[in-house]
């Protein structure tokens, strides 16, 4: 036992001394957090887009203006919901539309349920001013004042030389330096690039398409509203324009056909909610909240975490053994320790290294969530809280350890047979595939945790840790739990025993890795 402890400790210290270990511990969390911060800040500071609008038909300026206003109100609403999430008195993911009791929560839930409906409600009821009054009592005392997001789309004035009554082709020609980005537009003293030109030709209404009627000029690529812009990757403006112009045309059509547009609007906002209910919950708590959804997906988080943890440790185990083998250290060790002691020592030491890495990651995550206070991190913290309180942690620990023992045994045996990583690749492939299959099915297992295919797969020991972890939240049949555990434990014992033999013979091997037959002989021979 002392010898195993010595080996394990040396392996651990050796691991800790490598640059890779610290890169793993420091760089990965830094990168992930950095990515997260960059992403969220990018989302928050979307650039200002300047556009020009020329409406020769005179029919659609109003529609475009209101579309842009609507788009802005959508942003304000979204920002306001985030503001509420950050600053309301109580945060509770157990909330549902049914049990939301105050105006702030109600608004958040409404937006969650249907943003289109919530947006028109928002505009009808008076927008931000009304919302601020309504929710003020439910905000924290120290909440900062709400700052509206800046407008993303601003109309730029036309240059004086442009004659708005000229043919569209001529107008485009005159504006081309702006459209190309060679010349900037200036709005209220701030200059910027022209994002788009919306050009509505005089005869645009001839090109309205109706079902069953031939287009007026088939094949004319300039027919209809012209949207000129270099950046077509941001579709918000073109979509808003298209939606609002079409809404306006349809309103005209309704009017022409004697249908009330108010009636249509009312009808369009009519909806029937679908209540998601959980039959296993107590009476009165059946409504499915965000928390319930997270709880169902919690095993997935554990499975992915387990995968990352196992992948990194067994890889290290493999490269470490190969390195030791090619360094010719093993023979000295074998005069001092038995192959099994070496195997156990390595498994322990490297397992400990992986635990350290994981612990460091968790600590970083914890510090990040504690120190960086925002709606997103708070939500993340809540999700993690729910995951941890779901009673799955003991399962996770068990399957993680079992998975490690099983895979580590296999990878150590492979390492002992190969002198280079390249040689090991061939032997590794089947094991890696076995490791990846349960990961690829993870999302499907969540949807059908006790489906017969997944039940059957759970009995294959290499899959067991992942699949049973994945199914742990959905009350798998007792026979599955007990049976697969027994098979798993027996397999671990067998794998470690066999690895011990391969390890013993593989350690002193030089040259090519063995062929299948030779490998079989190693497993069965007495010496």
């Amino acid at each position, binding site marked *: 036992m002392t010898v195993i402890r010595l080996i394990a400790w040396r392996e651990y210290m050796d691991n800790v001394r490598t640059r890779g270990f610290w890169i793993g511990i420091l760089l990965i969390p830094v990168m992930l957090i950095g990515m997260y911060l960059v992403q969220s800040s990018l989302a928050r500071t979307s650039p200002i887009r300047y556009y020009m609008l020329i409406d020769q038909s005179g029919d659609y300026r109003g529609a475009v203006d209101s579309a842009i206003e609507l788009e802005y109100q959508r942003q304000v609403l979204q920002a306001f919901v985030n503001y509420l999430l950050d600053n309301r008195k109580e945060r509770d993911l157990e909330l549902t539309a049914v049990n939301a009791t105050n105006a702030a929560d109600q608004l958040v839930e409404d937006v969650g349920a249907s943003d289109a409906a919530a947006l028109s409600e928002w505009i009808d009821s008076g927008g931000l001013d009304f919302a601020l009054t309504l929710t003020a009592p439910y905000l924290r005392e120290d909440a900062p004042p709400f700052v509206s997001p800046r407008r993303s789309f601003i109309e730029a004035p036309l240059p004086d030389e442009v004659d708005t009554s000229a043919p569209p082709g001529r107008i485009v020609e005159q504006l081309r330096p702006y459209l190309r980005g060679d010349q900037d537009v200036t709005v209220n003293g701030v200059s910027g690039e022209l994002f788009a030109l919306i050009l509505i030709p005089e005869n645009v209404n001839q090109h309205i398409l109706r079902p069953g009627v031939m287009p007026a000029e088939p094949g004319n690529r300039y027919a209809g509203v012209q949207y000129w812009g270099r950046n077509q990757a941001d579709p918000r403006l073109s979509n808003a324009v298209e939606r609002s112009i079409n809404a306006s045309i349809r309103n005209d059509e309704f009017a022409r056909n004697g249908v009330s547009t108010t009636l249509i609007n009312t009808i369009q906002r009519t909806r029937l909610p679908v209540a998601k209910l959980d039959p296993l919950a107590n009476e009165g708590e059946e409504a499915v909240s965000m928390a319930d959804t997270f709880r169902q997906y919690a095993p997935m988080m554990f499975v992915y975490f387990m995968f990352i943890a196992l992948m990194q440790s067994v890889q290290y185990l493999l490269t470490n053994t190969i390195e030791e083998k090619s*360094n010719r250290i093993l023979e000295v060790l074998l005069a*001092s320790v038995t192959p099994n002691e070496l195997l156990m020592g390595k498994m322990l030491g490297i397992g400990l290294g992986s635990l350290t890495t994981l612990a460091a990651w968790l600590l970083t995550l914890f510090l990040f969530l504690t120190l960086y206070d925002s709606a997103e991190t708070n939500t993340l913290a809540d999700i993690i809280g729910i995951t941890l309180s779901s009673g799955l942690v003991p399962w996770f620990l068990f399957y993680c350890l079992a998975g490690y023992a099983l895979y580590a045994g296999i990878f150590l045996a492979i390492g002992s047979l190969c002198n280079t990583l390249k040689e090991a690749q061939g032997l590794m492939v089947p094991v890696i595939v076995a490791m990846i299959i349960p990961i690829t099915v993870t999302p499907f297992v969540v949807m059908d945790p006790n489906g017969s295919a997944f039940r059957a797969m759970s009995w294959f020991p290499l899959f067991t840790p992942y699949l049973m972890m994945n199914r742990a939240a959905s009350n798998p049949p007792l026979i599955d739990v007990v049976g697969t555990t027994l098979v798993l434990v027996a397999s671990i014992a067998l794998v470690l025993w066999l690895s011990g033999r391969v390890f013993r013979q593989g350690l002193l091997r030089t040259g090519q890795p063995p062929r299948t037959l030779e490998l079989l002989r190693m497993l069965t021979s007495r010496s």
Partner: protein
Amino acid sequence: MLEPVLTLENVSKTYGEFTAVDKINLQIPRGSVYGFLGPNGAGKTTTLRMILDIIRPTSGRIAILGKPSALHVRQRIGYLPEEKGLYKKMRVNGLIAYFARLKGLDKKAAARRADQLLSSYGLSDFSSARVEALSKGMSQKVQVLAAVAHDPELVILDEPFSGLDPVNQQVLESLIRNLSANNQTVIFSTHIMEHAERLCDQILLITNGKKIFDGTVAEARELIPRRVMLETASDVSGLQQLDSVARVSAAEDEAGVDPRWWVEITGNAHPQDILKYCFDTDIALNRFEYAEPSLHDVFVDLVGASAGEHRFR
């Protein structure tokens, strides 16, 4: 004879058709320095590995320090394998202490022993250097020290001299002598006869897996006849008549001004007899040379042609 530390009885190792070691019998007395001599691929390393129970013999019996397997007494054995390697990232003193601890020394004793060994063998300056910073010869010395750090009763060194410069070979020789003086048994393998000649009480000569001799160096020397070399233009055929002469042959490979001759002398005869006869019969000598046969001569004589055919496994 003292109680043997190691006994091999009919020990063989075969790999499929190939016989690496063929029915070796051996007894090694306590406190002796024992040399395993043989050409490359003779089976020295395989035999040593079997002694250490790193590989199991195909047949035969081994008793080491009174036990059937080295694993039972591994704390009393020190081993330096032929393929030398160390943990590159470890510090020299830490590494020696680590191996000592694997052999059962406690933390403090191991550290103390490492420092003591390093200073005895002139390596104190490198005590806290990383192994990767050492030269090949130096790291080999460190590995030898790691093998003996726990003061084992039996030290097994496989090709300990290979790769060392003459100065370090001297250091290693004195280390082996120190061990022997301390009543520790040393077994080492080599194909450089001079080391064996200087150090060994007893030797084992093997080739192609077979033992061809074991015994003291003096006994080995007696295996081949003593001889005198003469260089003369005179007729030497008369020498053949002497009782003290076994055989006279032309030394074709030895070039001189005049022809050279090997005169093999019988068991108890004295070279003086030959010289006297030459004076008496007016044989004009340009050269008269007598030397005890070296282990090298014995080796070449016994291993002969097969030494040239390197067999690779």
